[in-house]
């Protein structure tokens, strides 16, 4: 579920920013990006261990109320923003390649509605859907992606340069960091795990992330090898553009690559439904009694918020500008700034508690 909560964040845009910023250093930047995501996940797991029983958004056992309130707001805004940009991005893809006359709002509403519907029945329905959808979409992506191998003409663009340069690597990793946005959802998922399964779940999460690295590494090689660096940096959705080349004339559905892109919509769905679920649970500490009714009410409320938020983006250009100028630094600060603060707060609380109990 954790993997499904981040795999859609960059699947359409990858590896545009990475290549544009890092140039021939892009493979190293990708590696750094992956290591950064692993480190970020590790940091959140540390937080989970000191705060295993409730959502992070309102954690009076860790933070004083005056600090917990803005934390709650930041967490909610972040989750909502991520859902908004992923829904918007997918709607733009559908609008540009498939349904040019269908109003964008309709496409966005369809995604949000289906996501709300799945999340409506809470975690079991969510988990089962993810289990089915996610693996299916990954397997089909790899199989169809392999059909691109004969079309590789820019092999030189895949290979890493022997002259490593630090600035492009750092810049590429920074600008391309959106690829793994969403793993902070672990904080909301953690309390749902049986305590005895938590260590095992952490291992699975790391392994799944490692497999995601391989998935994106394959995507990088195919996109760069087939489309070449110039086209990749000029395309809004390099992966989609490259997939459009998978055209099997004799097959029933000749535009096989574009069919796959619709399958990526399943990644979007899992991303959005887990985020809506997460939003509904993150506000739960604010309610004295968090019933099913309250859960569904908040779910609907955040569905409307997400749908409303998507209206802010007129074109993919607006979306890219918002994501790169605002969201990349914000998410980075959140993922690498918040855990150390919480860990420090946890350590201080523990020390104070020990001092109080000792004679």
């Amino acid at each position: 579920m954790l993997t499904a909560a981040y795999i859609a964040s960059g699947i359409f845009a990858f590896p545009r920013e990475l290549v544009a910023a890092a140039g021939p250093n892009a493979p190293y930047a990708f590696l750094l990006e992956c290591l950064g995501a692993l480190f970020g996940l590790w940091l959140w797991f540390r937080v989970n261990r000191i705060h295993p029983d409730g959502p992070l958004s309102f954690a009076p056992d860790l933070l004083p109320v005056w600090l917990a309130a803005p934390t709650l707001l930041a967490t909610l805004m972040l989750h909502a923003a991520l859902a908004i940009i992923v829904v918007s991005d997918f709607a733009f893809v559908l609008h540009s390649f498939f349904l040019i006359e269908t109003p964008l709002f309709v496409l966005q509403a369809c995604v949000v509605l289906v996501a709300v519907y799945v999340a409506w029945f809470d975690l079991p329905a969510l988990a089962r859907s993810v289990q089915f959808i996610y693996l299916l979409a990954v397997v089909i992506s790899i199989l169809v992606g392999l059909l691109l191998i004969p079309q590789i003409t820019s092999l030189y663009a895949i290979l890493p340069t022997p002259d490593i340069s630090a600035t492009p690597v750092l810049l590429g990793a920074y600008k391309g960091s959106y690829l793994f946005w969403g793993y902070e959802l672990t904080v909301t998922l953690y309390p749902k795990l049986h305590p005895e399964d938590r260590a095992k779940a952490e291992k699975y999460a790391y392994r799944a992330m490692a497999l995601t690295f391989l998935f994106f590494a394959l995507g990088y090689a195919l996109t760069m090898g087939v489309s070449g660096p110039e086209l990749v940096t000029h395309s809004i959705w390099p992966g989609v553009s490259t997939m459009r080349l998978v055209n099997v004339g004799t097959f029933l559905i000749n535009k096989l690559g574009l069919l796959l892109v619709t399958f990526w919509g399943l990644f979007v769905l899992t991303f959005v439904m887990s985020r809506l679920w997460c939003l509904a649970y993150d506000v739960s500490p604010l309610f004295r009694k968090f019933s099913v009714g309250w859960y569904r009410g908040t779910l609907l409320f955040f569905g409307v918020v997400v749908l409303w938020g998507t209206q802010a983006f007129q074109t993919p250009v607006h979306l890219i500008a918002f994501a790169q100028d605002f969201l990349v630094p914000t998410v980075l600060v959140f993922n690498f700034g918040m855990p150390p603060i919480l860990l420090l707060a946890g350590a201080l609380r523990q020390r104070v508690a020990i001092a109080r109990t000792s004679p």
Partner: protein
Amino acid sequence: MRRALFAAVLVLVSALLGGCWDDRSIEHRAIVLIIGIDQGPDQQLMVHFQVPTSQALSSLSVSSTPSAGTPSAYVVSGTGRTVAEAMTQAQGKVSGDLYLGQTQAIILSSHLPAPQFASVVNFFARMGPMDKTAFVAVTPEPVAQVMQRQPQEGMLAALYLNSLFSCRRCQEVDLTRTVWAMEMRAQAPVTAIWLPLLKDKDANYQVNEVAIYQGGRPVMTLTPEQTVYFGYMINATSKAAMVFPLHGSPVSVRALSSSTSTRVLAQGGGLHLRADLKVQGIVDTLAPGEATLANLRTLQNEVSQGIAIQELALLRSMQQQGVDPVGFMAPYLWQHQELTPKAEALYRSASLEVRVHTRIIGVGDVL
């Protein structure tokens, strides 16, 4: 029960929300098979859309040819400063929706000025629903005339071009170019775009030449012979026959495949461009009793030398024009992006080397 009802309502709402905005039944679509773009009056573009008739379309679906005498396709045209504007005008002349999603080929006039060529490439790059795998060719002749030609009895031009460019090893040189390849090359620095030249020969299509574009204009046209050697360089030649004298008799060698690797080496202040060609061929014509080891060795050397001389001459002529359709410079510039502004000067002043290694892999059934 309530849950099931709720689920049903949600599913229904999702389905209904999708709506029918983009829905067009096939009888309301004018399915464009070929787009032709010519120079129009007053610096405008004249864009032609070839649409098959409903009879031709139904015969396509059952893989038969439409009955002789009946037109299999019609052409609607429009003029405008951009392809989109011309398309809007053409749309007014046809009852169905001009649909580009099944376009098989795009034929461009080689007389298009550079800004118009750039605008055309840009249009196809941005046209989401259009297939990136549509074939592209250029012609020096009036495009509408080329589009309306029926190369084989009853066969649609689009089908002919589709068959011609889909079969990679059917022709002497595989000159397949797609919208995507054109778009990809248009973005790369120095790397020129090459496109197959479509000519008229006895009311048939003839495709054995290549036009090389730089900056949106055709810089040079390769002769059929040069096209064969260019094909070796880009791994596209497979059937070319070469004739060499051996002991006073002509010997024919047919190359079956070529594999070329290119390298750019920094040498002093400049660059050295090296191409290594590996050619495999079979002997087609050789007098009986002549297929000896010594003769085959001599033949291999002759073929290698012959190809190397021609390739070097071709590369030099392209270098003089400052065009690099082979793509020597792309990997080097990717690694040395700071040199991109000087790329053309570096390419023009580079030294060239061609190394050919030929292997004869067959002599037929006669020693």
